[in-house]
């Protein structure tokens, strides 16, 4: 039986895809609403726009919902100013729904904190910002030949071209703050439409553009393949399956790698998990800083139940990403009381540089180390 977790991948791009389905559907409804010969019921179109805004907000984030409102309002402004009021009304209704949803849960404060996080989060980390900026540029660079050819003939006086260029404005603010690669997805459409209108379709243009696009995406696929080849999860699972029996007590600390978690969970391992806030702050292997000290890690391994870190699971009503904090707290500790004296400690990336006293290193890879308790110290 395949473990479902390992089948659920590509979740991040699914999130963008799902959110953009709402954004695009709302834009089509707005375009239809603004047509002078529109024959579709206006209330239905207003409802569609409101649903699109709510959907985009809850599919990914309120930032994307606000981006949708800005795009629809800009379109109405250029195409048919009389419809601007309708867009604002739809946005107001959707805002009411978005503000009401948290009160249907037990955690309205956490929900509002989540809404605010998207706007005021401090993610400007010099280590990852430049890498991300390069990846955003990299994601659209294979289209540059088409853009250069197309944009040179664009009539900027036409309102539709003005709109398409302004579409990018809210994205630039987001991109400057958090230039994650998936935001390129939001840039490509307006930039490409502007270019399409200006391209002459003689055979040479088509051949050159097609060759460059295919070469670009081929390069991407190769780069991604090389990246994937570096993953250490499968190798670590292989080591665990061959060397760690499932009646062992295992500590799994650091950034959670779901394939390892999934392997432990579905093969009946006795284990506990400890995660730190660094995980939430960065979430990628490119980050260099770790704020759990060697001493704290040892305290965690040797005295798990009394490791005096603040936010133990039992004391928390819910989990939240403490992106701004750089404290030494462990943000998440599971409480499997049957496993507190660890035979093995699987330590993932951020703590990898630390040593565990009384344990010997039995496996080491780029991001993961496995430590085994030395004999003579007893096991739990």
């Amino acid at each position, binding site marked *: 039986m395949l473990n*479902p*977790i390992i*089948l*659920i*991948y*590509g*979740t*991040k*791009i*699914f*999130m963008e*895809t*799902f959110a*953009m*389905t709402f954004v*695009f*559907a709302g*834009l*089509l409804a707005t375009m239809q609403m603004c047509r*002078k*010969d529109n024959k579709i019921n206006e209330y239905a179109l207003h409802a569609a726009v409101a649903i699109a805004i709510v959907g985009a907000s*809850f*599919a*990914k*984030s309120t930032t994307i919902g606000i981006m949708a409102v800005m795009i629809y309002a800009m379109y109405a402004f250029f*195409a048919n100013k009389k419809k601007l009021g309708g867009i604002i009304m739809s946005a107001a209704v959707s805002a009411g729904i978005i503000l009401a*949803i948290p009160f*249907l849960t*037990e*955690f309205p404060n*956490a*929900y509002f*904190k*989540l809404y605010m996080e998207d706007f005021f989060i401090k993610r400007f980390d010099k280590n990852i910002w430049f890498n991300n900026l390069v990846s955003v540029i990299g994601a659209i660079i294979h289209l540059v030949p088409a853009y250069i050819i197309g944009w040179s003939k664009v009539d900027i006086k036409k309102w*539709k071209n003005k709109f398409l260029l302004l579409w990018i404005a809210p994205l630039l603010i987001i991109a400057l703050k958090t230039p994650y690669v998936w935001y390129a997805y939001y840039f490509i*459409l307006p930039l*490409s*439409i502007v270019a*399409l*209108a200006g391209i002459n*379709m003689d055979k040479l243009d*088509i051949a050159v*553009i097609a060759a460059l696009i*295919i070469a670009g*995406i*081929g390069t*991407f*696929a190769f780069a*991604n*393949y090389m990246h*994937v080849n570096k993953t250490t999860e499968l190798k670590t699972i292989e080591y665990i399956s061959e060397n760690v029996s499932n009646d062992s007590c295992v500590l799994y600390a650091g950034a959670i*790698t*779901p*394939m390892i978690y999934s392997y432990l969970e579905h093969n009946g391992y006795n284990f506990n*998990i400890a995660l730190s806030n660094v995980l939430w702050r960065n979430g*990628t292997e490119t980050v260099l800083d770790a704020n759990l000290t060697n001493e704290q890690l040892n305290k965690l391994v040797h005295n798990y139940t009394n490791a005096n870190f603040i936010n133990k*699971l039992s004391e928390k009503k*819910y989990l939240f990403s403490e992106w701004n904090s750089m404290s030494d707290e462990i943000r*998440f500790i*599971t409480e499997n009381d049957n496993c507190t004296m660890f035979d093995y400690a699987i330590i993932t990336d951020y703590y990898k540089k630390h040593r565990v006293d009384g344990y010997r290193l039995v496996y080491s890879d780029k991001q993961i180390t496995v430590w085994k308790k030395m004999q003579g110290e007893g096991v739990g």
Partner: protein
Amino acid sequence: MCLKSNAMLWLALAALAVYSFIVAFVYGSNLWFIGDEGYYSISIYEAINNGPNLYITFLDKPAFWKPFLMVDAYALMAQLWNWALPPTISYRLCSAIFSAINVGLVYQISRNFVDEKKLS
């Protein structure tokens, strides 16, 4: 203009198809999780097991690092298709379906902009 531009759109879609083929060919049986991907995978897995909610969960604890809709939609669709399809397909179909919907929406939006007659 319309025909030429539509041809360019088809060209772009063909390039995307080639890209998809290359990715599928290259990745093959490799599975990978990068950064937050894995946390969402676990949340979706829990939504499949525990049913939809107005917030996501992580290791059965309410978690507030993303809204609920993506996780719930993925879980509900995967469960729905799981009745008739093997999990290797049903768990991936959600992404494929919404990608296909987006291709249609992008095509329609682009056509409206490129064809002068489509806009008022």
